[in-house]
């Protein structure tokens, strides 16, 4: 039983790797270029299936975009030039990582602002607590008086 299950699992895994894109027929001859192409696939968005990179996607357009990447690399483009080539056609959207620029600065800074805001809030809160504690420890008389007043009110004494 176990062996059958193991065989089935192995089969599934093989099927998975066979379906994964880019397929072996897309491999570049030059290993160095292939490594750069792979890295670039991962940084470029599939414009049809927008939450995937062209490395993850089986869409025909993603395959076409991968072909463009390989072609540009063979033509001697740098990684930045390949990205610029596609950005010129599809805009910033084609980059998986939004560039830091005027219209994305809020996106990049917002987490820092939240972190700083939270930090300041905690600082203010802790300071306030400490001050209250210190003030309370001084005599304790005020608290006693208040407790007496409260129990009087409720008619407990």
């Amino acid at each position, binding site marked *: 039983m176990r062996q059958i299950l193991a065989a089935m699992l192995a089969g599934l895994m093989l099927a998975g790797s066979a379906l994964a894109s880019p397929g072996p027929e897309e491999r570049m001859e030059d290993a160095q270029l292939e490594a750069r192409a792979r890295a670039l696939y991962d940084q470029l968005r599939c*414009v*049809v299936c*927008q939450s995937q990179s062209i490395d993850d996607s089986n869409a*025909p*357009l993603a395959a*076409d*975009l991968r072909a*463009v990447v390989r072609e540009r690399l063979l033509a001697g483009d740098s990684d930045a030039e390949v990205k610029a080539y596609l950005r*010129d*056609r*599809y*805009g910033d*959207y084609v980059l998986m990582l939004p560039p830091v620029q005027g219209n994305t600065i809020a996106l990049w800074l917002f987490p820092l602002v939240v972190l700083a805001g939270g930090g300041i809030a905690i600082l203010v809160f802790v300071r306030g607590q400490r001050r209250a504690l210190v003030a309370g420890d001084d005599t304790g008389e005020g608290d006693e008086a208040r407790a007496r007043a409260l129990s009087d009110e409720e008619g407990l004494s």
Partner: protein
Amino acid sequence: MNRLFLFLPLALFAVMAAYFALGLRENPGEIPSQLIDRELPAFDLPPIQGHVTGLASADLAGEVSLLNVFGSWCPPCAIEHPMLMQISRSGVVPIYGIDWKDPPGAGTRWLERNGNPYVRIGNDAEGRVAIDLGITGAPETFIIDRAGRVRYRHVGVITEEVWDRTLLPLVEHLQAEDMP
């Protein structure tokens, strides 16, 4: 002061709700065209099977025109087709077609069956011109002005509403424009 502080979560919620309500009006899936107000990228495509003339970017200069990217494999294109036929019959504006990634002959058969609204058709079997145009899916339609610049892009089917409210007014506006 402390009392007012209690309203802070409510105020924050109101700000976020307003922000998200505005966001609902937008379509985040739509990638804005990089070509708007730029010259149409140069291309020279061969004809589809059985046709004599292909389509080059230079063919579109001189008058306001539509450039429609389609494929026989594309179901929304079949929905759009009757509208293109109607526009073509009206003679308001010439429509040029790019047959995107069709197997040989498929585009020709499709047009024989459904009618041909295009003045000229280019065969983009490799899909490379489509990438130069920043196409994300078929159908997509560009409005090209007389100077050969892209002035508008519509993603998806041209419905009667889209045509009447958006594309036709823009075409007429561009046709009335003086030649630069």
